[in-house]
């Protein structure tokens, strides 16, 4: 162990500790509000990957920064040591990158996918058909209630603590169904019904938090950026009342 | 690096052999096409694997003998 190696090792430890402290101990990296069980899976995966990335980034940065300061010279007069490779180092490098990659694939990759699928399986409490058109959504509830989002005061109302299944399709071009608070997104493809689930937790309202909105996330032409509508998550009783009222007006 | 002259025409058989080779390859390919047709018309579901089995060698024969693939790495046929 020569001095440089020891120095970089400590630099790495310090940087890693600092980074992990910022990630784990402060709320500098806060995430937006979560409105669905699925969103927790997404955020946990994000959080886990960030915490895992810190030591990796810290390692490269400490080597880069140390070399930048310690090994600088003012001209090409002298050559460095003609080291072409340390075989054991390279194998060690390959082993830990491979190990880390495989680990990340399994968790949070595959485990996350399975968890989201598990949440989405089972009988939904409510099925909402959502149809994208340029440039509005048509939201079909049970009982023949339809909300077209270009109408005045249009909003997507959902019951809390319910497993809601969205069946998404499109009438013209590609759109994407995205509610940032739910962290869930799926494309609306003409001629195809795609599905996505959200198990709502907690009340929410666009007026309080803009993450509660249904947003088109796939470029669909002229008014793509305006193709959004507020989402309001209300209590089940309130939702039923709202639905009944709408059904009356529709009929 | 220096190339032998005959490498330009590395795949040069005698003219008689060439004619014979051409006819044999053509005959084989024609037989292949007819077999394909028979398979395609007779075996309505599930002809795909059989067709692949026929077509891949068929295309390979053209690439190998007519297009002289082996000449790319300088070998003879």
């Amino acid at each position, binding site marked *: 162990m020569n001095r440089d190696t020891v120095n970089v090792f400590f630099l790495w430890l310090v940087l890693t500790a600092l980074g992990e402290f910022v990630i784990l101990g402060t709320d500098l990296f806060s995430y937006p509000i979560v409105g669905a069980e699925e969103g927790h899976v997404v955020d946990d995966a994000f959080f886990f990957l960030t915490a895992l990335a810190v030591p990796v980034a810290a390692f490269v940065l400490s080597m880069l920064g140390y070399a930048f300061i310690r090994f600088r010279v003012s001209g090409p007069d002298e050559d460095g040591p003609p080291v072409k490779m340390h075989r054991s180092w390279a194998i060690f490098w390959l082993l830990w990158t491979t190990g880390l990659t495989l680990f990340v694939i399994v968790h949070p990759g595959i485990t996350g996918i399975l968890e989201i699928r598990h949440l989405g399986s089972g009988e939904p409490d409510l099925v909402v058909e959502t149809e994208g058109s340029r440039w509005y959504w048509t939201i079909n509830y049970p009982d023949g209630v339809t909300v077209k989002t270009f109408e005045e005061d249009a909003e997507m109302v959902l019951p809390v603590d319910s497993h809601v299944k969205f069946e998404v399709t499109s009438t013209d071009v590609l759109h994407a169904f995205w509610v940032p608070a739910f962290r869930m997104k799926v494309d609306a493809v003409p001629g195809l019904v795609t599905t996505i689930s959200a198990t709502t937790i907690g009340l929410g309202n666009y007026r309080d938090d803009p993450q509660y909105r249904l947003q088109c996330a796939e470029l669909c032409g002229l008014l793509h950026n305006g193709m959004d509508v507020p989402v309001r998550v209300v209590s089940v009783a309130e939702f039923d009342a709202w639905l009944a009222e709408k059904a009356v007006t529709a009929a | 690096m220096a*190339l032998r002259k005959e490498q330009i025409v590395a795949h040069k058989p005698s003219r008689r052999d060439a004619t014979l080779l051409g006819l044999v390859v*053509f005959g084989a*390919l024609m037989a292949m*096409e007819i077999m394909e047709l028979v398979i395609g018309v007779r075996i309505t*579901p599930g002809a795909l694997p059989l067709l692949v089995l026929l077509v891949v060698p*068929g*295309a390979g024969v053209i690439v190998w003998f*007519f*297009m*002289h693939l082996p000449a790319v790495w300088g070998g003879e046929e």
Partner: protein
Amino acid sequence: MTTEHAVEHGIHSPEMRVKINRIGLWLFILSDAFFFVALISSRFYLHGTYRPDDLNQALGLGVSIVLLLSSLTVYRAEVAASYGDRAATQRNILFTIGLGLLFAVGVGYEWYEAFSHFPPSTGFGTIFFTLTGVHATHVFSGLIVLGFLWWLNRRGKYSSEETYWPVEGAAKYWHFVDVAWVLIYPTLYLVS
């Protein structure tokens, strides 16, 4: 740009030039093959192994055999050119052009029939007209190249084995068009 050293190391020698041209043509063919792969995969992606009943199977087999035969004649043209036999080269190029035109006529008739059964605006028609159309474009460009060959061969450009590379190249391209058809033919006419 024939500097002294280049000749010395064979980089600009005629032998090397042919070798480079040959690899270049092969790379082009490899690249072009990917285009056909994309189209053929689209057929299976969109329609699986569906096949309409209105395909003219006799015509399909006919044009396939015509194209195979043209591969034979262009092969004979290449062999003749490599022996410096100008007359035989000329004759076989002409045969190939004729067979190529015959193939084009066959496909044209098939298009005429297909228009009434599955026009380009229908699912299978889309893939049928695109694949045969792209292939026909290759046939036509091949015919143009063969036309140039015929014209230049008449003026004695390819009379020796050092100078016959253009014939070999054109033949390779023509064979490639044939290979493409060998794959397209079952894709469109036979799978089910």
